[in-house]
């Protein structure tokens, strides 16, 4: 079992995960100086969707969505379970590939991406095999170091701050309508956290909502700072604007390479996202097939995800084009459509059961 605080931190770090790498420049490209408003709208939407998940999970206490699907839909529920397994695996492959792209572009250009994928998967697999407590505690342990060093690095960069770069303000507050991708990635992907829901002692609902709100505010603040430090035109053209912001920090002859600190923070955040997704995939296998062994399935997931990470997309540009077109619909199927249908089924069955008991 994990505590409410650990679940909250997992929600925040999972949502921030790859978002800080791949989304900030896209947001600025779309909304310019008003990019900071988009995560706030997306976060509000994410919280609304999370309330739907809460209604579903509260309708069958102690069960994950995969177990609810099996109970509600029988053999068809098992197919839904397999679909969720595919969803978690695809999202994990995406996170892994984002990580290796970042490492190859920034500090380790000659290391084969598979090395990053396999190393991360082996460590994450070991942590997942230890159970939800290890996942929760590991994340709680690293979060203070991440938060302090991340905001300290950015605070050092504020020497280049210029309010003029944020002008004109409030010209495009509804840019989120043109870029619904942000609603899917990262906010609907947090559906993976519902697999941990039955393992939270109490107060999971508040932790999930507060986690989503905190992550939305953090992403908004990051977009705001990036525009204030780099300007909208430059930030929109750079692949990893946050990295560039910190890379340009120079304090005399002493602090000149603090971007390596940021690299560690970003890969740790991605590792946490991978950890949750691997846990969700592993739990799904456990709940669907009730296997009696653990490590062979984690090894099988390592083989699958290490290949999936290489083939999930061709290159970051192709990925951006494809995700802009489909990610919202793709995530909506898993995080909106199936939970709504499940909730309706559970309520209808309850009504029918109540009537038959009365008669």
């Amino acid at each position, binding site marked *: 079992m994990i505590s409410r605080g650990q679940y909250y931190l997992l929600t925040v770090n999972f949502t921030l995960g790859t978002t800080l790498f791949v989304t900030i420049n896209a947001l600025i490209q779309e909304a310019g100086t008003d990019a900071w408003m988009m995560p706030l709208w997306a976060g509000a939407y994410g919280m609304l969707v999370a309330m739907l998940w809460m209604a579903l999970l509260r309708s069958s206490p102690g069960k994950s969505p995969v177990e609810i699907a099996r109970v509600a839909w029988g053999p068809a529920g098992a197919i839904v379970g397999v679909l969720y397994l595919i969803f978690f695996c695809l999202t994990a492959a995406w996170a892994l590939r984002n990580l290796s792209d970042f490492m190859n572009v920034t500090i380790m250009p000659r290391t084969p991406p598979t090395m990053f994928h396999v190393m991360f998967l082996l460590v994450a697999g070991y942590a997942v095999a230890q159970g939800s407590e290890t996942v929760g505690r590991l994340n709680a342990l690293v979060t203070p170091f991440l938060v302090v060093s991340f905001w300290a690095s950015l605070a050092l960069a504020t020497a280049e701050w210029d309010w003029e770069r944020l002008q004109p303000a409030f010209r495009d507050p509804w840019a989120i309508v043109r870029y619904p991708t942000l609603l899917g990635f990262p906010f609907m992907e947090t559906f993976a956290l519902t697999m941990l829901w039955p393992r939270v002692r109490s107060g999971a609902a508040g932790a999930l909502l507060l986690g989503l709100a905190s992550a939305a505010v953090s992403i908004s603040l990051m977009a705001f700072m990036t525009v204030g430090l780099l300007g909208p035109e430059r930030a929109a053209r750079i692949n990893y604007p946050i990295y560039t912001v910190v890379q340009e920090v120079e304090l005399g002859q002493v602090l000149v390479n603090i971007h390596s600190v940021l690299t560690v923070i970003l890969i740790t955040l991605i590792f946490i996202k991978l950890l949750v997704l691997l846990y969700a995939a592993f739990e799904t296998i456990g709940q669907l097939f009730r296997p009696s062994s653990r490590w062979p399935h984690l090894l099988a997931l390592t083989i699958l995800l*290490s290949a999936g990470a*290489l083939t999930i997309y061709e290159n970051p540009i192709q990925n951006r084009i494809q995700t802009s077109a489909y990610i919202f619909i793709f995530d909506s199927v898993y995080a909106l459509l199936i939970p709504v249908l499940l909730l309706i089924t559970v309520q209808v069955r309850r009504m029918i059961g109540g009537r038959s008991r009365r008669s």
Partner: protein
Amino acid sequence: MWLLYLGLAPLIVLIAAWLVNRKMFRDTAVFAAISLAGFGLWASIVHGRPIILNTAIGRIFSALMPWLAG
């Protein structure tokens, strides 16, 4: 390519054989299904024709859209 057929394939076969030997047939089936899916993806990479997953997802949704729209 040799790593795929001399490294990965024997690893999958050995673990599957170990699971069968322990009479964990359900585990064998689950392990084989997941690892063979991974092996297939690896084989597509090694043979120079990778199955690009996000393109495949895009194609599925493109095919479904007119059908869903009625």
